[in-house]
């Protein structure tokens, strides 16, 4: 499974990452930037899952249907993604909390105007 092979999963998740990045780079609204970050997170999580995905594989559970590990999806990325999602959520929560405070101080969410700290 080559990284650069035209694989729709990878295109999909990297598109998400790029869209997120685009939002972060271009949108001046703090909320939108946070949304962008979240989009990126989602893309990355998707990517992690995709890494362990096998076309037509089953869930990595030893059950009636599958007793051999060959046909199973790699379980490790899924575990990782769970952790990453938790982290992502906590970052998101903190970010939104800070956004409220920023709005309270500056009365705006326009990043072009939130420049109290520079140079």
């Amino acid at each position, binding site marked *: 499974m080559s990284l650069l092979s035209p694989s729709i999963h990878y295109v999909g998740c990297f598109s998400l990452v790029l869209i997120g990045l685009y939002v972060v780079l271009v949108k001046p609204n703090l909320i939108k930037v946070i949304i962008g970050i979240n989009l990126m997170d989602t893309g990355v999580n998707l990517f992690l899952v995709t*890494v362990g995905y096998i076309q037509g594989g089953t869930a990595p559970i030893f059950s009636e249907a599958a007793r051999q590990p060959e046909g199973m999806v790699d379980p490790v990325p899924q575990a990782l993604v769970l952790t990453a999602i938790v982290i992502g959520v906590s*970052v998101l929560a903190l970010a939104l909390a800070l956004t409220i405070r*920023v709005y309270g*101080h500056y009365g705006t969410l326009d990043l072009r105007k939130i420049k109290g700290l520079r140079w």
Partner: protein
Amino acid sequence: MVSPILLIAVPLGLAFITPLLGLARKGAPRYVPAVAMLFNLLVSVSLLPDALRAPIVVRTAGWAPPFSIHLVAGPLGLLLSSLIALIGLLVAVYGMDYIREGATTRYHVLSILILVGATGVVLTGDVFNLFVFFEILCISSYALVAYWGDSASVEAGAKYLIQGAIGSSFVLIGIGLLYGAFGALSMADIAANVSSVSSFRLFVSLAFLITGFGVEAAVFPLNAWLPDAHSSAPSSISAILSGIAIKAGIYAVARVVYTIYGAQSILPFVALLSVATLLIGEMCAFSQNDIKRLLAYSSIGQMGLIVFGLAMASATGVSAALFVVISHALAKALLFLASGYMILRTGSREVSSLNGMGTRMPLTSLCFTVGAFSLVGLPPFVGFASKFMIVRAALETADTFFVVLLAIALIGTVIEGAYFLRIVQGLYFKPAPQQAREETRKEPPLSALVPVGVLAALIVAVGLYPGLVERALGAAANDLLDRDSYVQNVMGD
């Protein structure tokens, strides 16, 4: 023998019972960080001699590497965790009285978490765990930067968070790529198989990891968050961020480049970046009027020096860089802590408000001076020994490239000398500003004086007897450079 895992488990546990303690007794939480770090310090130091002989590998859940999640407490990890515990302990003592307003319990919890995160980063042997500890470190520092809740700190926190989150995403992408290529997360396992994968594909993951960890390591051009965050955080947190957190970032980058990839050939490029970091940090610091922002920029400069040493890829270079890590951690923590009370007393962060402090807060000023002299690299302080080692290492490479970079780096240290010594002049030889001259004539409480004094004493002691840390430095450098024995130690037989 105690297990290194206690270094993480005990503080983590303490962090989570702190709020409960707070419920039980109002004043209790403020002592918890100190207790946790004292424990860590004792354990790390007691483990260090063993680790110098052979790294202590801790397997969890009964699995053997590469499948398990494991800790590798090698000389480098334990050296850094001792440093973290030491600085953490002193800052925790300082924080007992310094932090009086706001959600103090949460402050103490988060401050333990930062330190636990940093300890985890330096001890873990697993890429994903590296990421997790890294996130613990980052998230708690985002929150602590915004602790005061005023506009500057909130803004700094938000900006830091955005950049940090981008960095974390990059790290995660890098880890995903690595896992895709090797199907493993243990650093040793990956390291053993690196040569089996095509180099470009590997490089992409390396680039993502370097960039991602580099954000925390404050390498140019990823360091824009640092001056904001360091200057807006409470001074105790600035000390931790500057003394510990960015070092953890550097450690992560170094581990990735040296141990996982063995990518020595990109180091000249890193050296270029490091010198750029150094120069930009010092240049920006030069005309700063805000003392904490100045110290923050100076940290960027010192990070440049550390990365420069690491980029030499020689045993002397790496141990010199680690020496700078130690000397900078001591000195910068000292400076942030000392300036913390000066700022508190004068109510201003202007450099000029420090004028005349030499008579108003003599002991604090003296310690501040010691720290500044050490950073400038004047003997007999520890900064001299570390600068000496960096220069020696650069010249021993006998590589024109490094010698030229060294010359540029030395220009940076000259600039550093210029602004720090200007401040020192201000402390002693400039008249205090007119307003608030009498009421600021007061030394900080003992809980602040003691850490500051201990740091100053350490700076002098290690400066006079660099032998105190030298042996550990050599072993730690070897830990980083010698991939094969790292792999062997972790994988067993």
